């Protein structure tokens, strides 16, 4: 692709970008939110067409991409982050569906569908039960189905959007194997990601975009995390490790907390102003455990002590009254009510405080409180009545934090707070977290990234299969060590 530009209204999403891939190459496209990478992908897959002056060549032939069906015919298949699967249909049907629609056949040939599915799975060395409904598959299995569908549609280039976002370490390994198989079959892979370890494990070259411009193309081997984040943002983010926690004011103590089929015998201590990180493989019980602290998943056994007093929250409200706040992992689905206003979202956690004397909601009090938090956290909004879904990602995150800080929590639980957030926004979150800790709020942070644990917490706990298997001062760990411990090596 040469000289690709794209303007949407007043915004120049892409500015004279050149991009190229070789047959069977594994290439990674990185960039912050707003760097133009999604626009570039959309142009490659034919959803948008480039502004005049831009040229696209496949196999040296000039292509005009007016419709996405053109790019499909050229063998370009996109796997979106939601995988675009049909949960109510079988694996076989899901795999074969693109080609079935493409060939335009009127009748449904079940036998042929089965055969096609099995054949395609063999090509990349996987095998799943073709008769199972996709709704019953794990995320990793679903991804395999999505990839199979792309292959079945005679893909020569498979584009994947953040493929490893919800995968465990083992599943990532399997995915990498599949990508290698694709390579063997001379099917090129382009994926969008920013997880350096995965990029390095599988990509040959990396194209970095920033603010709509191409920063450069690099061999994966010559990149380090520092270099990559510098290339993506143009800034250096240096973090110094946090010292081990000193001081002995215990705010939250958990003793032998257990819940059947979730976790067992959890012992944990959090001090005032301490940042505690809980890490581990997916499915180790971390979220289940913290939800118990938040009253939404009451434990069967053990004790929770807050400032020395035993508490037993059996609802979110009870936990909030005790002083525990929880920011859910999925910000969009569970953290905010997207269609409603900033104001309504913020006050939702402390409605009691904005009641007037006759126990009705006081508009004045509501406005005052909301203004206060908007100013304190520098949330950029046109008006407090703007729906939250009109805000940028970073500002949305601040609204989330505002609504929780507003209840004066003693303990703030953050569940994977930086997933899917670009480097600059991550940085501001880390800053906020350190500030809150300095003010005396205790933080419990669940994370999957070793770097996050090491650089942004005082203490790290490792959970595995529902138990705590390690507790360390974060500053004493190295990334390699932590990875090994998490994976039980």
């Amino acid at each position, binding site marked *: 692709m040469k000289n690709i530009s794209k303007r949407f209204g007043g915004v120049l999403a892409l500015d004279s970008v050149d991009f190229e891939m070789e047959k069977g190459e594994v290439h990674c496209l990185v960039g912050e939110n707003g760097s133009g990478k999604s626009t570039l992908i959309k142009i490659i897959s034919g959803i948008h067409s480039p502004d005049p002056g831009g040229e696209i060549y496949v196999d040296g032939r000039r292509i005009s991409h007016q419709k996405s069906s053109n790019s499909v015919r050229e063998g370009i298949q996109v796997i979106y982050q939601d995988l*675009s*699967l049909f*949960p109510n249909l079988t694996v076989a049907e899901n795999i074969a*569906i693109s080609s079935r629609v493409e060939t*335009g056949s009127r009748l*449904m040939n079940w036998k042929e569908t089965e055969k096609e599915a099995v054949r395609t799975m063999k090509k990349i060395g996987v095998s799943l039960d073709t008769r199972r409904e996709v709704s019953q598959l794990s995320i990793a299995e679903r991804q395999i189905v999505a990839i199979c569908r792309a292959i079945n549609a005679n893909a020569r280039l498979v584009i994947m959007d953040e493929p490893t976002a919800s995968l465990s370490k083992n599943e990532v390994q399997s995915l990498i194997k599949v990508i290698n198989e694709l390579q063997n079959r001379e099917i090129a892979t382009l994926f969008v990601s920013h997880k350096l370890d995965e990029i390095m494990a599988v990509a040959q070259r990396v194209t970095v975009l920033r603010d709509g411009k191409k920063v450069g193309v690099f061999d994966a081997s010559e990149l380090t995390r520092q270099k990559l984040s510098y290339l993506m943002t143009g800034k250096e983010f240096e973090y110094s490790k946090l010292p081990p926690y000193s001081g002995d004011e215990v705010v939250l103590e958990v003793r032998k907390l257990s819940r059947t089929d979730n976790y067992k015998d959890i012992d944990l201590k959090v001090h005032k102003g301490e940042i505690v990180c809980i890490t581990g493989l997916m499915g180790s019980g971390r979220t289940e455990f913290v939800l118990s602290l938040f009253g939404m998943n009451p434990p069967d056994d053990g004790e929770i002590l807050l400032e020395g007093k035993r508490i037993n929250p059996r609802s979110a409200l009870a936990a909030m009254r005790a002083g525990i706040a929880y920011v859910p992992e999925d910000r969009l689905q569970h953290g905010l009510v997207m269609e409603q206003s900033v104001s309504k979202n913020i006050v939702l956690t402390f409605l009691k405080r904005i009641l007037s004397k006759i126990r009705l909601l006081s508009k004045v009090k509501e406005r005052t409180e909301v203004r206060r938090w908007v100013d304190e956290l520098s949330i950029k909004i046109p008006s407090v009545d703007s729906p939250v879904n009109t805000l940028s990602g970073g500002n949305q995150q601040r609204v989330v934090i505002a609504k929780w800080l507003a209840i004066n929590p003693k303990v703030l639980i953050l569940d994977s707070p930086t997933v899917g957030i670009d480097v600059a926004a991550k940085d501001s979150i880390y800053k906020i977290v350190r500030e809150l800790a300095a003010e005396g709020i205790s933080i419990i942070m669940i994370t999957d990234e070793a770097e996050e644990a090491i650089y942004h917490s005082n203490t790290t706990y490792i959970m595995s299969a*529902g138990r705590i298997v390690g507790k360390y001062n974060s500053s004493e760990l190295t990334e390699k060590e932590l990875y090994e411990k998490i994976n039980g090596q």
Partner: protein
Amino acid sequence: MRRSTDSNSVLRKAFGKSEFYLLLVIVVVSLFFTIMKPSFLTFTNIYGMVESNSFLAIMAAGVLVVLISGGIDISFTAIATVAQYVMATIVIHWGGNMFLAFAIGGVVGIALGFINALLIYFLKTPPIIVTIATMNLFYGLLIFISGGTWIYGFPMWFMERNLVRFGDNPGITIPILVLVISFILTWLILKHTALGRNIYAVGGNQEAARRVGISVLKTQLFVYCYMGFLAGIASTVQANMMLTVAPNALMGRELEVLAAVVLGGASLAGGTGSILGTILGFGLIVIVQNGLTLLGISSYWHKVFVGAIIVISVGITAYQRKLRERKGAIINVEE
């Protein structure tokens, strides 16, 4: 992977499906009724049950298809009423034959269904709201234009119901034939045509369907036109049985039909449902009503029973689903 061919896992698979439990309940209930009133399990009775409910059953097949696509249609009884009026007027004034009668009914139904489809696709309003509006629109206009008169006086050939007789017993009548054809046709479409599979796809994940190249518009057009078609056909069947056309005779039972189809496993969210399930769900309700009548229980109690069945069975399904979506995953905790 081991294929589930051995008998053990066939049985296990059967247990997992809701149709199995429905069948079980039907068997139990039928047994109960048969014990109480042996005349329940006679050919005449069963035949009568099927025939008198054929009108609603045919439309239930249409509702099934609509639900699978992720939509809903409340206007089908209004469509049936309009189709019936038009068909009766034409047939009585200008004559014709049975085939023509059904054709007219079907065409009118398709036309009205077409309107539904266009409105739903282009207005982007939830189908339930659109079809509530079109229900009022179709029915209101019909009565206004026709004056709400009853129609009698069908030609002789229209009155013939039986196609094949087996001695003295009623043989294959038109209602039964049309019912069977409708169900088989619907089954074929859903299971063995690309269009049918597209309906399931659109119902399962509309955005994904669009991405793999399925025309959501064409699919929805088919779905609502098919519903209209079946409504039109069903109304002709009804006219054939009743030999009169009355303005509000067909209205008011939409939600019952919907409930029966959902009972049979279709979901309001779309993507699931089968003809077998619909037959079973509809069948259960019909059997219960028939049995209660035979037992001499006043028809006033019928609604109570039907309502209870709906709540209980849907409740069980919903509760099971809720249990499956528990907040915490099941983690194999190390001992």
